[in-house]
């Protein structure tokens, strides 16, 4: 029973990680940039989510608003920050991204206050029993939502012109253009989708914790980096699996190894061990 609960918790964590890491892997796969600032879109989604829900009471509207704002902000980040730096060595974009991330967190703090925001009436707090396990409705929702969205994305990537073109832009830009889709459109699309997902994840974390803080993106930012490395950078299915694996490792790790290492250390210890054994990542195709 305890075991099952841990697995259930891992799935919830893993779903959230997957949603955040996906945007990161899309960007990396396309541009080879470590988009640290991605996590600030997660936080942005959470803030927009709380504000919208407190104002309207509609979860659907909230999710839409958060995804839209985050998605568009992501595209803006690309246009303003990364596009001009594409020809520079990778560390330039990395530091720029870090600077952007720090500045963003501070903007959140200055704009919304240091103590954070909460829902006046948190949605989906009811209990759901599945067998011997007890979940919050929100936990079920985030797992289902993640599965649905990621499933759709995976399907789109392999079955539509846009999707295949996206994949092609990495390996063969000319061919992508022949599909009638320009390089720039693909890039914008990648950022749009990835950032929207981060915003979506942000809303759910806000619902689960009932607390949105300016620094809530810090930990996800580097966890997501660890995940995309584990998953074999650029691979969507790989990232998904890695996210779930990390959820499992963290849950079981904190219970059994908690006295020796803390949660983050466990995650990174796992990463380092994996990389030493398989330097290309757990699920890389090559």
């Amino acid at each position: 029973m305890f075991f099952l609960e841990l697995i259930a918790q891992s799935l919830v964590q893993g779903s959230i990680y997957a949603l955040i890491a996906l945007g990161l892997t899309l960007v990396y796969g396309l541009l080879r940039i470590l988009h640290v600032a991605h996590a600030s879109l997660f936080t942005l989604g959470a803030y927009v989510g709380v504000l919208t829900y407190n104002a309207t009471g509609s979860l659907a509207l909230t999710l839409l608003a958060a995804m839209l704002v985050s998605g568009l902000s992501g595209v803006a980040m690309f246009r303003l920050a990364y596009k001009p730096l594409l020809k520079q060595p990778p560390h330039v974009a990395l530091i720029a991204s870090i600077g952007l991330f720090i500045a963003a967190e501070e903007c959140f703090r200055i704009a919304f206050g240091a103590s954070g925001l909460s829902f006046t009436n948190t949605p989906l707090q009811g209990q759901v029993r599945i067998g011997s396990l007890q979940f919050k409705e929100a936990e079920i929702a985030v797992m289902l939502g993640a599965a649905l969205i990621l499933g759709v994305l995976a399907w789109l990537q392999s079955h539509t012109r846009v999707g295949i073109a996206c994949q092609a832009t990495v390996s063969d830009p000319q061919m992508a253009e022949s599909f009638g889709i320009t390089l720039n459109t693909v890039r914008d699309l990648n950022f749009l989708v990835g950032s929207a997902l981060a915003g979506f994840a942000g809303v759910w974390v806000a619902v689960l914790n009932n607390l949105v803080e300016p620094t809530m993106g810090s930990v996800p930012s580097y966890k997501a980096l660890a995940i995309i490395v584990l998953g074999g950078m650029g691979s969507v299915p790989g990232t998904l699996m890695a996210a779930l694996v990390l959820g499992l490792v963290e849950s079981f790790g904190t219970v059994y190894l908690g006295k020796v290492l803390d949660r983050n250390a466990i995650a990174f210890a796992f990463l380092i061990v994996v990389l030493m054994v398989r330097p290309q990542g757990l699920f890389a195709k090559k």
Partner: protein
Amino acid sequence: MHQRSSNLNTAQSLLLAAAFFGTSGAALADIKVGITVPSTGFAAADGKSALDGAKLAIAQANAKGGVKGEKIELVVYDDQASPKEAVPAATKLVEKDKVVAAIGGSYSGATRASASVFQAAQVPYAVAYAIHPDITKTGDFMFRVSAMGEVQGRAGAKLVNDLGKKKVALINIKNDFGQSLAAGFKEGAAKFGLTIVGEHEYSLQDRQFGALIANLKSQDPEVIYASGYFYTAGPLVNQLRAAGVTATIIGQEGYDSDKFMEIAGPASEGVLVTTSLDRDSSNPATKAFLADYKAAYNAGADMVAAATYTATQVVIDGLNKTGGKGGAALRDAMAAGTYDSPIGKLSFNDLHEVKKDIQVQIVKDKAFRRHSIISDPVLLAPPSKSSK
């Protein structure tokens, strides 16, 4: 010739300046009191409360004419609740701003770091709510107005006993705050014959406690003694109740903020906390503070604000007695005083720890109300110099 005359001019101007400041200096120069708070970083919320509490005390003192007619100036430095930032902040206060006293409005780690700087410079440091034992052990210029971690922990154990329960699970936040509370609790638990069925830890940044809660459920405790701050305790308590855990939850002053109820929602009902601020207090100093704070900031005061206000009061009181001078005279004045503060009647022992009761508050209808008072001078005796 040319060189000499310019030297003379410089010397003349210096003399003039010295005279100017010498005579009228006393009226012009403010009395500088420093404060270290986490204005940015993860503890920024508490930093704001602390600063607001201190500012209120200073404003009230200045309105009454300051210290012997001179206004008190509060020099604020942000230490981000990090020891790394605290040391330069404290150093600047001592060396650059030359403050006569300082107030510690930050967390334990940062305060410990600042403490050694102030002690070395012989600047009295009144610590508001950092509870680590080493702070006062740093030296005799250190003062603490809140109950230490160990003392609070013992009080927590007594509370469990008073409630008639025996099986306790501990959830400790992994920092010096959590560690000292846990140490005190375990000491008290031994005295009262409580059984600790499990001990769990979590990090400052954790907000999701799924695995921890699953583990805890399997231990079936009657009471959960959980340390943390409102931004960790809020989600924790919410998730505990959501997972079907019905055990009584006891927290400490880290929970002491209206934000806790906001975050935890209905799950916060019935949570007990050991703290220093009694919202239902009949003590005039407390009532006045709560009212003044609300009027000044349009927000309810929390323990951090009350403690920092008190620490500031202690400093101002001491300054009034020494006429604005610092150093050993100020230290002695502060040590000898008794204070009627928002967090109770205070007096210091020889280690400059306070001897006072612990308030127990319970969350009822989304507000902290009085539950009981733990008053046991023997149990709650803070360490003194001899027991070092």
